[in-house]
Structures are given as structure tokens and as C-alpha cells.
């Protein structure tokens, strides 16, 4: 057996998988059964893993061995995170890697399909100081007009965002502190938004999505967006955009009783699909609450409901992405590729693919089981030999 390293091994892929799985080199080395120095050499490109080691590595990190030989797709634009804290460096790297995988998936599927045309308002600000509150309100209004959402409540913001050509991913990340991130992809010619599903709160998730759309619309051309002071301002602006998009001044303000009680806010929450906290902030932004009134409401909110949750948080099922899922369904239904070949074509494991495309767990095996289930309609008794393919239909025993 040859001891030479695998040809075409891409060191960037190793770095990406370490981030995506939140593993250190030392941890990975122990799991693969090699020295940390060896992993370090793989990662720097001075040495490639041998065939056996690559198989072991691939099996541990749950990708196809061949995936390590795929050229790394171009980097996304610098993602904007909800938290820039140094404590979350590893978490941000993990989320960036997951987002790059989403880009890989979307790019691989784009060989066969056209996604909806990108339909976002365009702004060319290079510094956040240029962006006024009025400009944010205008941009949010324009977004609603482009997406044909009218001026009332938005039924499904995820559907609208995907219809506007945004690639949307919503998955459990294990990092509840970072609710979402967004970046632009040159390969796709469109942006990607990744939302954390960890809090499982439909209201917050909608706001997170609106917040990320705000970044995409307002901050595409901002220079040095991660600088501390700048980042804070960008976050405030994205928040204001989210409020304006979900709760447009001209219609929302009509329905508000000034001063509202917390119970008034709960009624508005159900109708408009935004948390009582987000509504309070929006009322403040619109000048319908002054600073003192806002603080008083937040105080009452804490006293009655605690700091983190609100009544009715479970009322709304989080909106789910559809576009990538529908794309896979389309390719399978149109016989472009069989279901079981999709993970292989993309190179990721079925479970990663299911998570990133919003498919239910076990989907790639589940759908083929469904085909097997159709055999139950067959009146002919099952032959033993036919069971070799997978599921076995056990006949009822005779009562005689």
C-alpha cells in the first residue's frame, strides 16, 4: 500500500471542518489517532493525509473523504454577527464555516436551477454615520414595496426574504448568544442569512431575520464594519430597520394606544408578530414613548414576566426556510438526480444537509422508505428475496 498522501487534499477544507465541528487540532488528532503535529502539517499543506487516515478523518467529522479534495469555494464577504465579543471567536468561526457550507450547497444546486431574482433595495453607504433614521425608514418601506407586502402585518417574512432571492438557513447552532449572521456571496451573486434556531421563538426569529435583512440593505458597502464603535452603530441601525420593516409607522402607529399597557402590547404582539420588547423599542423610535415611559414599560415587563421570556412566546411557530428544500425536491421530482445521490453530489453528510436546507431529520432515508411503504398496497404476498433491498414487510399470520 502506498504511504503517499492523498492527491488534491485541500488544506482549507480541514480548517473549515475544524471550525464547523468546533474541534481543536489536538482534539481531532486524538480522535483520528495521529499526532497533533501531523494534523498541523495537513492544515498547513506541507503534508497530505494518507488514504487510510483520510478515511478515518472523514468518518470522524462526518463528511465524504472526497469532500476534502474539493476546491474551497471563494470566501463570503465579512459576515456581520450579532455579537462581536472576543468570547465568541470560536463560535463565529463555526457559524462562518456553516455559512460557507450553505454557500457550497446553494452553488451546487445552482448548476441545475435558477433561484428567484435578487430583489433588494440598494444603498451605497460606506460609513454608518451617513445613514439617518429617515433613510432607514425609507429603506424598510421600499423593501416592503419591492416584496409586495403591503403596509400591514407580514405573514411570513422568511417566505418573503427567500422570494427576494436571499438564501436562508435556520438551524440549531448551540450558540444562543449569536442569533444570526449575514454575508454576501460572489459565487451566488446573492446574500446568505443564517439564523440560530436555538431559542425556538417564532417572534424573535422573525425579528432576527428582519435585522439581518437590514444589514444586507444598509451595510453592504460599509468599510471596516467590525470596528467596535462602528459595529455598535450598525447593530442599532439594523434593529431600527427590523422595527420599521415589521411595524411600519403609518399602519402600526394607528393601532397603538398611547400609553400602552403590557397587555396592550401582548395584543399587538400576536397581531404583528413582534415581541412586546421589540414593540416597545419601536414605539420609542417613533417618538410615541419617551425615555422614561420606555424604561417604565421595561421595568414592568421584568417584574411581571422576567427578563428573558414573554407570555405567548410559543404561540407562533418559527418561520422555516423553503428555497433550498424546494430545490432538492424539484431535482428529485424532475428526475435530475435521485434523492440518495444528493448528499453525495454536494459532498456533505445527509444530516448536515438536512440541517442546512431545513429538511426534517432522516429525510434522505425517510423518503426512500416512503416508496417502500407503497408496496403495502400490493396484494401479492411479499417474496423473501424482495426484502433484500431494505425494509421487510412482515405478513400477518393466518388465523386458521
Amino acid at each position, binding site marked *: 500500500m502506498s504511504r503517499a498522501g492523498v492527491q488534491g487534499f485541500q488544506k482549507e477544507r480541514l480548517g473549515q471542518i475544524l471550525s464547523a465541528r468546533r474541534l481543536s487540532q489536538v482534539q481531532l488528532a486524538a480522535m483520528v489517532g495521529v499526532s497533533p503535529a501531523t494534523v498541523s502539517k495537513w492544515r498547513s499543506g506541507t503534508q497530505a493525509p494518507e488514504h487510510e487516515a483520510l478515511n478515518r478523518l472523514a468518518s470522524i467529522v462526518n463528511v465524504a473523504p472526497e469532500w476534502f479534495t474539493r476546491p474551497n469555494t471563494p470566501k463570503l464577504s465579512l459576515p456581520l454577527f450579532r455579537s462581536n465579543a472576543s468570547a465568541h471567536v470560536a463560535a463565529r468561526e463555526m457559524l462562518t464555516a456553516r455559512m460557507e457550507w450553505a454557500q457550497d450547497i446553494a452553488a451546487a444546486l445552482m448548476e441545475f436551477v*435558477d433561484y428567484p431574482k435578487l430583489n433588494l433595495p440598494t444603498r451605497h453607504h460606506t460609513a454608518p454615520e451617513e445613514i439617518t433614521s429617515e433613510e432607514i425608514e425609507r429603506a424598510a418601506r421600499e423593501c416592503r414595496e419591492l416584496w409586495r*407586502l403591503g*403596509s*400591514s402585518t407580514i405573514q*411570513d417574512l422568511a417566505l418573503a426574504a427567500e*422570494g427576494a432571492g436571499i438564501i436562508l438557513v435556520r438551524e440549531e447552532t448551540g450558540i444562543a448568544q449569536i442569533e444570526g449572521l449575514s454575508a454576501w456571496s460572489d459565487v451566488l451573486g446573492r446574500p446568505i442569512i443564517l439564523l440560530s434556531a436555538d431559542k425556538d421563538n417564532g417572534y424573535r426569529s422573525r425579528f432576527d431575520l428582519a435585522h439581518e435583512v437590514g444589514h444586507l440593505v444598509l451595510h453592504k458597502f460599509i468599510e471596516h464594519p467590525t470596528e467596535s464603535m462602528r459595529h455598535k452603530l450598525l447593530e442599532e441601525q439594523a434593529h431600527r430597520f427590523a422595527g420599521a420593516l415589521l411595524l411600519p409607522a403609518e399602519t402600526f402607529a394607528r393601532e397603538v394606544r398611547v400609553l400602552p399597557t403590557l397587555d396592550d402590547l401582548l395584543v399587538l404582539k400576536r397581531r404583528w408578530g413582534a415581541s412586546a420588547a421589540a414593540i416597545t423599542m419601536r414605539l420609542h423610535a417613533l417618538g410615541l414613548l419617551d425615555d422614561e415611559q420606555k424604561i417604565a414599560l421595561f421595568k414592568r415587563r421584568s417584574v411581571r414576566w422576567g427578563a428573558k421570556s414573554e407570555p405567548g412566546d410559543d404561540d407562533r411557530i418559527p418561520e422555516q426556510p*423553503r428555497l433550498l428544500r*424546494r430545490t432538492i425536491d424539484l431535482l428529485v421530482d424532475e428526475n435530475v438526480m435521485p434523492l440518495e445521490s444528493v448528499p453525495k453530489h454536494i459532498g456533505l453528510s445527509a444530516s448536515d444537509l438536512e440541517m442546512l436546507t431545513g429538511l426534517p431529520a432522516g429525510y434522505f432515508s425517510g423518503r426512500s422508505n416512503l416508496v417502500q411503504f407503497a408496496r403495502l398496497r400490493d396484494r401479492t404476498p411479499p417474496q423473501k428475496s424482495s426484502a433484500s433491498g431494505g425494509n421487510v414487510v412482515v405478513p400477518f399470520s393466518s388465523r386458521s
Partner: protein
Amino acid sequence: MRQHDSIPELLRVNIARELILAVEDAFAVGARRAYSAAQGMDEGHLPHVVGQLRHFHLNETFHQTLSTNHASPSPIKGSGIITGRAGIFTLARFNSRDTLWNSARRSQTRRQMALANRAIEPLVQPELFFPYTPPTGAVVFFVACFAGSLSIQPDSPVSIQLAVPDRHLQKWLFRESLETFIQRYDVSSAMQDDFARPKLKKNFGKQIDKDGTTS
């Protein structure tokens, strides 16, 4: 009959949302001014004074609103009715008690104006010998409804209604509070469009047939 030919839809298409909101504000302000102006009058005739002043103050604010919103108001003259125009609709107003609208027919001018609504009656009750054709004129009233007692909400209307009478000014072909009606301008979001659908690339199927591959 076209799809948008219903009375509320005709109103929505012809009268701008901004004008509806402006009338709402105008009536609130007019009512407040009237009540304020009547303060100090003798209790014995205070309700009548407030009623009279409401007429004049609401006329003034209504006129101002029509003027600002390019609705061609008729000039203020004596106690005459102020009218405006928005699309096919002639706009006018009157005040009434919240419970019983007995003041509507008191005005000869209003009765005359209501005759135009024969054109839109078929939208509610189709006629055999008078087939519906798209109307070129109709009349709608903004009705400021007051409580009928100065001990209840004396300085503002209890509600403001948009009311379309029949030709005899005896029945209402359509009646709705402005608060409810304003939501009709948001109908475009009633059914959200679903654009989040991928499409197979053009000629993709043909490429497969020709080459036997999908690359």
C-alpha cells in the same frame, strides 16, 4: 360587473387613505374646538350651543382637510353643507347621535345629493330593468357620531362612520367606521405572494436528452 365594483372597493379606490385619516383628525379637532368654545355658556342651553358649534367647527376643519388633500371643497357659506370630490365620489358630512341617525334626512341638499346613488344601488340589489354600469358619480357622507349627552365624551366623536345612502337617503348601502375602513387599504398583504420557488434552468431537460449527462 368588474371585480372591484363593490361599494367599499369603489370607496377604497377613489378616496385616498390619507384623506380618510385627515378627516378623522379634522373631526377630532373640530369637536374639541367646539366644546372648548362653548365653555362658560349657561347649562340651560349648553347642549344646543355645543351642537351648533360642532356644526361650524367641523365644517371649518372639514373644508380645510378637503382643501389640503386636493378634494375641491365648496366654499364655506353660512350653515351650508361643505362638499368635496374624490374620484367619482362627492364627499359631505353631518353630525348625528351615535344611536339614531335621524338628522341625515333633515337637509334638502343632502336628499338631493343622495339621488346620485341610484347608480350604485345595483351593487347591493341588482335591478332587472336598470342594469349596472360603472358609475360616474355617487355620494358618501362622513358621519361624526356623538354620545348625545354632554356627560359622555363631550369633546370628541364616539365614532366616525363612512356612510353611503340609497337614493332616498332612507337606507344605508354601506356603513363602516373609519377605524375599520382604513384597514381595507392594507388588503394587498391579505394573501402573501410566494416567490420562493426555484426553476429548472432553461433547456436543462434537452441537454440531458442530447448528451445523456447532466453536467
